């Protein structure tokens, strides 16, 4: 199947490719794409891929998303690739890389953690051996990280 049939090429913007199948919605959540977003966003789920079998794909038009923000997507897939498109040409292509610290994106699963209270601090994790460790309570998230991605309004409220 030609994936071009599913989503058109974009003129300018950011293409997030090779997302693990079924995880596109989490990518939108990480990037804070919600009902307030004004850019054109298209995405496809479970698209055949020569590289990883099946994949999801997200395209955000007329917006160049910062590398730091995009790297947060590595939380849900280490093979995710980013294409920055200008005038139909890919001007930059890179694989996402998990940052050494993840701030404000993922909530601590430990209900007794101080970061889950009204204290004026963001959720904060350090990356240790590819796993997230809460900066405050030390809780390690070893699987299903996407379950703990915070909603955009929560994010905004916590980061002061």
């Amino acid at each position, binding site marked *: 199947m030609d994936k071009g049939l599913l989503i058109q090429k974009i003129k300018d913007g950011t293409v997030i490719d090779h997302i693990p199948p079924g995880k596109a919605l989490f990518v939108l959540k990480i990037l804070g794409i919600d009902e307030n977003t004004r850019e054109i966003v298209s995405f496809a789920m479970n698209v055949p891929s020569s590289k990883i079998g099946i994949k999801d794909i997200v395209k955000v038009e007329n917006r160049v998303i910062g590398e730091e923000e995009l790297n947060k997507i590595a939380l849900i897939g280490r093979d995710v690739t980013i294409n920055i498109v200008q005038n139909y040409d890919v001007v930059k292509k890179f694989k996402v890389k998990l940052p050494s610290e993840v701030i404000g994106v993922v909530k601590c699963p*430990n209900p*007794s*953690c*101080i*970061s889950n*209270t*009204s*204290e*004026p*601090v963001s959720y904060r994790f350090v990356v240790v051996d590819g796993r997230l460790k*809460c*900066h*405050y*309570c*030390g*809780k*390690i998230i070893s699987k299903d990280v996407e379950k703990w991605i915070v909603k955009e309004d929560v994010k905004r409220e916590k980061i002061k």
Partner: protein
Amino acid sequence: MMSRFRHLISIEELSKGDVEYILSKADEFEDIAKKSFSDILKGKLLGNLFFEPSTRTRMSFETAMKRLGGEVINLNTAEISSIAKGETLADTIRVVSGYVDTIVIRHPKEGSAKLAAEFSEVPVINGGDGAGQHPTQTLLDLYTIWKEGDINDIRIALVGDLKYSRTVHSLIKALSLFNAEIYLVSPEALRLPIQFREELGNNVVEVDSLEDIIGEINVIYVTRIQKERFPDLDEYHRVAGSYRITRKMLENGEENLIVMHPLPRVDEISPEVDATAHAMYFKQAFYGVPVRMAILSEVMGYG
């Protein structure tokens, strides 16, 4: 003089060298801790912020500070609930750190001491954060082994509730610095969580009964098995009874075998053990004073 560390939040932040330094520092303070006084912290003020009661830890810090010539202000649970309604911990810390030279915090939330350190103008010492860390307890446990046993040949049985005991979890991290041989003795339902087993690697053995290894070890570390952990009372009594340390049991142990317990104990150690040379738990509680003296003087730059 420069301090080796500004805050003391978690035992993991200390190197083996830091730990050994604190232990030898505590040793130097032991004579003062035994009912004498010094003035090295004269003019300094310690703020004890206890958001949950812990009489032993609070009194031990207070004793340590006063024996070094310093003063202490306490903010107790009742005061906290009346003056700080709805106030964040961050704000309380910002205010109190303007009053005192060092803060000791005890708080029910995990990570609270770490957060406090981020908002404090002065050193913060973690006096226990929920199920999280209690580094001064761990240091006094190590000091007890260092003084009364052989820190370079630790063969230790950890007995009781290994699943929920914060004391045991912190001690395990510290023991890994000293290449200890560790035996785990606990009921099925209260086994050590897998993440701690991983950290220990090959130096750990799970055993069914303390009697099987009593001749192999030189330290027994007993923790309380809490009633709330069991679905019914009969089950609790059956399990708790089978992990009780008795005088008879210790007869098969080495002569220099020591029995430790973070206290308070309930039924875990039979009172008849108290009179034996093995009983180290009351001395262990006393050692909290010189160890906390060493920590207080260190963070305030008088190490």
